[in-house]
């Protein structure tokens, strides 16, 4: 028999600290698979967020800089300018990318910075214990929105990927789900396309992965992916949001 699936080579052979069923683990795997398939792991440099994926460098077997909360795109910019032939990506959660890091995200897009953002949207602050995120949807509870998010009180949720897609320097913006095998496969394709965009020097690429945080949602893993498919995606529909300046040839 032939081995048809094995742990990707750019994931270190170690256990991670993520909770059971956490989407981060799957996204890690997908990115590592893409690195292997596109043969770009050897020149990849990642920026780890402050967030549950703060230890990403312990799991990915590629070069990494650990970033400060929200500054992934700025750090990635510095890296890419210094090593233009590297494949630079910033791995970020929703708090990181869409709250404290809003300015860095928007302006990396405006500059058309040739980097890739891997954006894990789980609608909550995982690392710090379930506080409200910019992407927390109305009605959803969080430790800092104990009565459930209400527009009048906690404001609306923010679709940052949509905003980024509206910006001219963004070459590629897409959203995938981390739920079923089908959606996971699609998401992997989006991740690959985002990195391809960088290889083609087309500007900023962002791929949002709508992803379960069973722990802070207070759900079992299977219930959490179901909730994504039934409720959460109503606010975050998957697909390619924008594609600009397609390469000729």
């Amino acid at each position, binding site marked *: 028999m032939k081995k048809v699936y094995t742990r990707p080579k750019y994931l270190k052979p170690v256990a991670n600290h993520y909770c059971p069923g956490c989407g981060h683990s799957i996204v890690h795997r997908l990115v590592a698979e893409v690195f292997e398939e596109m043969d770009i*792991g*050897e*020149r*990849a*440099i990642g*920026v*780890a967020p402050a967030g549950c994926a*703060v*230890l990403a*460098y312990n799991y*990915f*077997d*590629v*070069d*990494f*800089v*650990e*970033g*400060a909360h929200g*500054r992934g795109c*700025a*750090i*990635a*910019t*510095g*890296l*890419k*300018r*210094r*090593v233009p032939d*590297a*494949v630079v990506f910033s791995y970020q959660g929703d708090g990181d990318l869409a709250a404290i890091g809003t*300015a*860095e995200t*928007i*302006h990396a897009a405006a*500059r058309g910075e040739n980097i890739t953002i891997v954006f894990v949207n789980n609608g909550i602050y995982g690392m710090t214990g379930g506080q409200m995120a910019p992407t927390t949807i109305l009605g959803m509870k969080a430790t800092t929105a104990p009565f459930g998010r209400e527009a009048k009180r906690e404001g609306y949720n923010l679709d940052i990927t949509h905003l980024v897609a509206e910006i001219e320097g963004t070459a590629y913006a897409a959203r995938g789900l981390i739920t079923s095998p089908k959606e996971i496969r699609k998401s992997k394709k989006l991740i690959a396309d985002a990195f391809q965009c960088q290889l083609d020097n087309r500007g900023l690429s962002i791929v949002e992965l709508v992803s379960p945080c069973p722990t802070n949602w207070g759900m079992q893993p299977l219930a959490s992916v179901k909730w994504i498919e039934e409720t959460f995606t109503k606010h975050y529909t998957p697909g390619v949001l924008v594609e600009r300046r397609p390469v000729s040839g």
Partner: protein
Amino acid sequence: MADKVLMRGNNAMAEAAVRAGCRYYFGYPITPQNDVPEYLSGRMVEVGGTFIQAESEIASIYMVLGASAAGGRVMTSSSSPGISLKQEGMSFLAGHELPAVIANVVRGGPGLGNIAGSQSDYFQMTRGGGHGDYRMIVLAPGNVQEMADLTYLAFDLADKYRTQSIILADGMMGNTMEPVILPEMRELDSLPEKDYVVDGMRGKRPSRARLSLILEPKELEDHNWKLQRKYKLIQENEVRFEEYELEDAEMVIVAFGTAARIAKGAIRRARSEGLKVGMIRPITLWPFPSDVVRQLADRVKEFLVFELNAGQMIEDVKLSLEGTANVSFYGRPGGSIPTPRDLAKVIINRYSQKFRLI
């Protein structure tokens, strides 16, 4: 003569950075240092470097972190409020042990303050305004020539110790033009190799991570003691200062930067009236020339600290002296800069109180 050029402090600093091999500059406009980004926006294009006007001071310090992690000689500059915004990033650079050169062309504070020259960020720069136990090399140029020379040096020191080098100037120093001899252009391939750089494994080495998150307290403690040993080494090797008219001095002024420049004029006036006054000018504010100050106290018992603030370096002078001499203070916060004549009056006054001269 031929090689002297008339240059503004800010521009001399910027050009010296380029000549020191700096090819990455990330900044954000703020008076009184706007010449730096303005100069480099054009100059970096000429030398094939990167200039980015970032969306903020915060973004720029983290761009610095990225470019430094990838091995570049990199710089940012700002002025007081903008430097405050960089504090988190500076703490990260310290924790990550990444070299960088950061210029603070200080203006009057606190808050929005004004754009005149001031020295009120001394504490922030020498004590680390960011969180955690860390230090940075703080160089305080005394004229435009030193704006160039110390910037050039700053890059070497930053690389040598994997630390931040601060150029602590002020609005006056940054905007004054003087004739300056620029340092030579360094070949990029003459710069020292770095073995910690994160630039892709390239099939040649295992993956690397540059970080400052160390969850286990014991390990973070070890990391901290390692940093402290490095800082100790810097204290032992990198103290720089200027002695001025100290031979027969009965009273010593301690001043740096623009204040020291004015103090020289004041000392010349005081001396012309027969007062035996000299000066010690710290060039490195950290590491502070504590030993020299302490040794001076063996023969001089009167120290006057003069700062363009409400009294900050005086703590380092007192910490150096440990009660072995009298220390008084004259300060002008808020961007006020006295004339050499004003200061001379203060000096003469204090001197005569002590030595009953008049």
